């Protein structure tokens, strides 16, 4: 391999992406403005713009204003967000959620396939069958595929190191997708991607969001982080973390956090509280998080106890995250987000108590979208290939 040639190729790609990003973000939309914005020489800019136009990512359209000294009016350049599409998918113990998105993140179609208990190779088949569902809907050439997985992944090697819920161990997912679809693929942890999606599409002010922590609760508990914007992100499962809780006899006992926050545990506890207080508004059947939220809004005592018991272990996770990373935003994701602002208020209050402080700088918010990780996978794929988000 010619190292010098590779370096030139990489440099050219880097410069091309610099220009693409400047056009995408609206920082510059003429060749002259691009030269000024990127510091590249005008002939280099012209060559790279021609490459982008030939590749269908950019188009010329209309004319801008002449400079103060007059002269020819410059040709305006536009990013074509529909020139390529990206498939993002996330897989957890229950289902594969996939999204087909344009390069600006617009969702064109979604696809869901249930796992129905499939594990190991069967779970991989369901992933493929869901990705195929989106492959069939492509309106433009596919740029790449992003996949999020519940569990521990080695993103750089493209390997799922361990996913206990899916029964995967050292699965070379990226390589298998690349061979099957002949396209680039990226892999990350689901919650890490949920954090990225929240950063990119979540509506938090980008300029004041440096660090964002997402705590996601569903079958397990995961924490995802984006540091320095979208430059670095990481996530992992902490379901096995032991958290102290006061038992019925007043003695403290330690329990796995995923056990404490699992829906079955919460539903069981709700039933016990309802048995103690039959006037409680918590329904005997068909209970959901939204029922608990409604009951709390009507000053239901049992609902209040449930909120406190759910907020406690989450506050421990948040307290550690705040102490270690000093995030601008803490986002609660997963079905539990249906408990709404009252849960955030309790988590925030208990976090302040744990950290012995009157004020937290982090702002708390909720992410309700079910396809957050799939959107994050698409965002990561776009970012890896084009560096524009």
């Amino acid at each position, binding site marked *: 391999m010619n190292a010098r040639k590779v370096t030139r190729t990489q440099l050219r790609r880097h410069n091309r992406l610099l220009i693409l990003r400047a056009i995408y973000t609206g920082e510059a939309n003429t060749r002259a403005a691009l030269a000024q914005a990127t510091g590249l020489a005008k002939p280099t800019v012209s060559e790279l713009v021609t490459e982008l136009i030939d590749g269908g990512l950019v188009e010329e359209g209309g004319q801008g204003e002449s400079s103060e000294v007059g002269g020819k009016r410059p040709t305006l350049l536009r990013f074509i967000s529909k020139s390529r599409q990206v498939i993002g998918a996330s897989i957890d113990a229950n289902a594969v959620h996939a999204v087909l998105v344009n390069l600006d993140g617009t969702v064109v*179609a979604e696809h869901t*396939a*249930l796992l129905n208990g499939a594990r190991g190779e069967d779970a991989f088949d369901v992933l*493929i*069958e869901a990705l*195929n*569902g989106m492959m069939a*809907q492509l309106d433009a050439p596919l740029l790449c595929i992003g996949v999020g997985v519940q569990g521990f992944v080695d993103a750089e090697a493209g390997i799922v190191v361990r996913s206990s819920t899916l029964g995967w161990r050292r699965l070379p997912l990226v390589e298998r997708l690349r061979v099957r679809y002949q396209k680039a693929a990226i892999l990350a942890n689901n919650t890490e991607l949920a954090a990225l999606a929240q950063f990119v599409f979540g509506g938090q002010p980008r300029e004041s969001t440096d660090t964002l922590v997402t705590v996601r609760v569903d079958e397990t508990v995961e924490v995802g982080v984006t540091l320095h914007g979208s430059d670095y992100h990481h996530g992992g499962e902490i379901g096995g973390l032991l958290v102290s809780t006061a038992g019925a006899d007043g003695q403290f006992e330690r329990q796995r956090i995923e056990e404490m926050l699992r829906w079955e545990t919460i539903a069981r506890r709700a039933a016990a509280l309802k048995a103690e207080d039959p006037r409680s508004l918590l329904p005997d059947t068909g209970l959901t998080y939204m029922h608990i939220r409604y009951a709390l809004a009507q000053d239901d005592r049992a609902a209040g106890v449930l909120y406190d018991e759910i907020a406690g272990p989450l506050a421990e996770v948040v307290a550690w995250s705040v102490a270690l990373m000093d995030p601008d935003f803490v986002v609660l994701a997963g079905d539990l987000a249906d408990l709404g602002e009252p849960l955030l208020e309790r988590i925030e209050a208990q976090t302040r108590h744990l950290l012995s402080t009157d004020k937290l700088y982090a702002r708390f918010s909720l992410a309700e979208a079910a396809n957050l990780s799939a959107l994050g996978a698409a965002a990561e794929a776009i970012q890896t290939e084009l560096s524009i988000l």
Partner: protein
Amino acid sequence: MNGARGLIGVITNNQHEVFQQAVILGVREAAADRGYRVVIDSIAEDFTQPRSIALDLQAMSGIIVIANILPDEHLRELYEARRPMTLISHQVAGLPIPSVITDNQRGMGLLARMMIEQCGCRRLVYIRGDMRQIDAVERDQAVERELMRASLMIEPGLLLDGQFEPALTGQLMADLLARRRDFDGVLAADFQMALAALRALQRAGLRVPEQIQVAGFGDGIEAAEAGLTTVAADVVEQGRRGVRQLIGQMEGLRMRGVTVLNTSIIARATTRWPESGAAR
């Protein structure tokens, strides 16, 4: 064959119904783009005497079935015969035939949230559909969820079992109006029932939207003509996406699950928000 790459068979109840017409339009467009001809088998135009399938299934490259016109057992036989097949607006539990559906829950949730948050409704009449159908159940759940989010509930007396029957809905609404008028909005699980309720409100002399706001799920020409606020997916697009899903299978892509199309609110004259009706 006229040079076509193959035949796509479409099985539907009645090709002349509004929804089916729009789906078939999308199917024809997308099939023509890919060089396929479309054959329609409309097997229940007289709904009292549905007939059996007349299509030569062996001659079809693939089959699209619109809604729940075929019994699940029949669909299972077709699936087990490994015919490339796509369902539109239907799913069969336990049978992994791919389908293209509208996002019932998100759409209905969007409409209910709009009625509560933007239109300011606090005491809603909810007209639910035929609760034996999954569409009705999902829309019901979505409405309940949005109401609970706003700390509201449907009063038992304001819950009407319209069963997707406009005539029945009109009667139920008239009966309700004879008893009480202390509500500020009517939300229906489909637009045909919403239209029936709207007519009953107007006959009773109530001003819409000044006194009562009305909205329903789904959309059609009658809804547009009546100025009814709705939430709907692009049904022609549903037909197009269905063909793509089918052709994907015909070309060897194994797939399962549902492709879900988003819905959007079409705000018109029966609600007070926004001031000027516009699709969003």
